[in-house]
């Protein structure tokens, strides 16, 4: 066994998530069912080993709720925008592939940013460069450099929001410095 031992604390979010899924699937949140779910979660996490997700060690719930609300609003607005583009602009829509360098180099944050950006209609991650943590994003209705700058700013803002939620302390202070400067 060469694998690194992962601590229970690092594994805890995964286990909690698995137990919640178990309870939700059975639609039964009684103590016995949850206990059995926890046993299965531990067994699954031990048997089907995955590389541990390196969490930043902090999680700001208040900001997460606010971020989720903003995210939902953006999804609604952008869905209707794509609908409008599909009906009105149709075949003449202009788009662009934009490179956006991210601040963070942690896999978790790059993945989360990519997910959020992909879920907002109108932008789509085409390619990821992990070594420089650069996202290549295909944006719809990006007609000129100004629109591209807007898209880039939106991606960077999304990443800033995610860093404020669950980035490491170092990333957070770097972000504060950048905003302050």
């Amino acid at each position, binding site marked *: 066994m060469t694998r690194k031992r992962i601590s229970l604390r690092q594994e805890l979010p995964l286990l909690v998530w698995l137990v*919640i*899924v178990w*309870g*939700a*699937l059975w*639609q*039964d*949140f009684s103590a016995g069912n949850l206990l059995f779910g926890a046993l299965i979660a531990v067994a699954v996490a031990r048997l089907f080993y995955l590389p541990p997700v390196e969490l930043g060690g902090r999680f700001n719930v208040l900001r997460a709720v606010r971020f989720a609300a903003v995210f*939902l609003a953006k*999804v*609604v607005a*952008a*869905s209707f925008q*794509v*609908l409008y*583009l*599909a*009906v009105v602009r*149709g*075949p*003449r*829509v*202009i*788009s*662009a*592939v*934009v*490179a956006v360098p991210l601040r963070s180099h942690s896999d978790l944050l790059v993945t989360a940013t*990519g*997910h959020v950006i*992909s*879920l*907002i*209609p*109108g932008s*789509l*991650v*085409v*390619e990821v*460069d992990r070594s420089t943590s650069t996202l*290549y994003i*295909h944006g*719809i209705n*990006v*007609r*000129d*450099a100004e*629109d*591209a700058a807007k898209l880039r700013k939106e991606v960077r803002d999304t990443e800033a929001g995610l860093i404020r939620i669950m980035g490491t302390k170092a990333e957070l202070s770097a972000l504060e410095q950048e905003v302050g400067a």
Partner: protein
Amino acid sequence: MSPETISADAVIDAVSAVFMVVGALMSLGAAIGLLRFPDLMTRMHAATKPQVLGLFLLLCAVGLQMRTWWVWPVLVVAWIFQLLTVPVSAHMVGRAGYRTKHLHPELLSADELEAVVQQAAGERGFTDE
């Protein structure tokens, strides 16, 4: 049955009816996008993303209609599965589409990936055909 509960029922019914119609319209929007957009990448925007909102609205409608609290966790889990899988499949299809050149270069105002891909292809001695 007091009048208040009836009106509350009616409001919930109305809200879920609106949710259902808008959610169905999102599917129609996806289909319109599929038919009208010029290339694979733009079609992908229309095809995969409005479904996220559509499914959200429809699951909300289901939750409102059931009127019990214990269905909400299942619905949330179903939606989160959708949130986790949609970007991944969209990214995979998009990446494959870019690599196999399903693009109209004249419809792109900028392509900052192309130079990088060309360079990487040159380093590996890899050509298209």
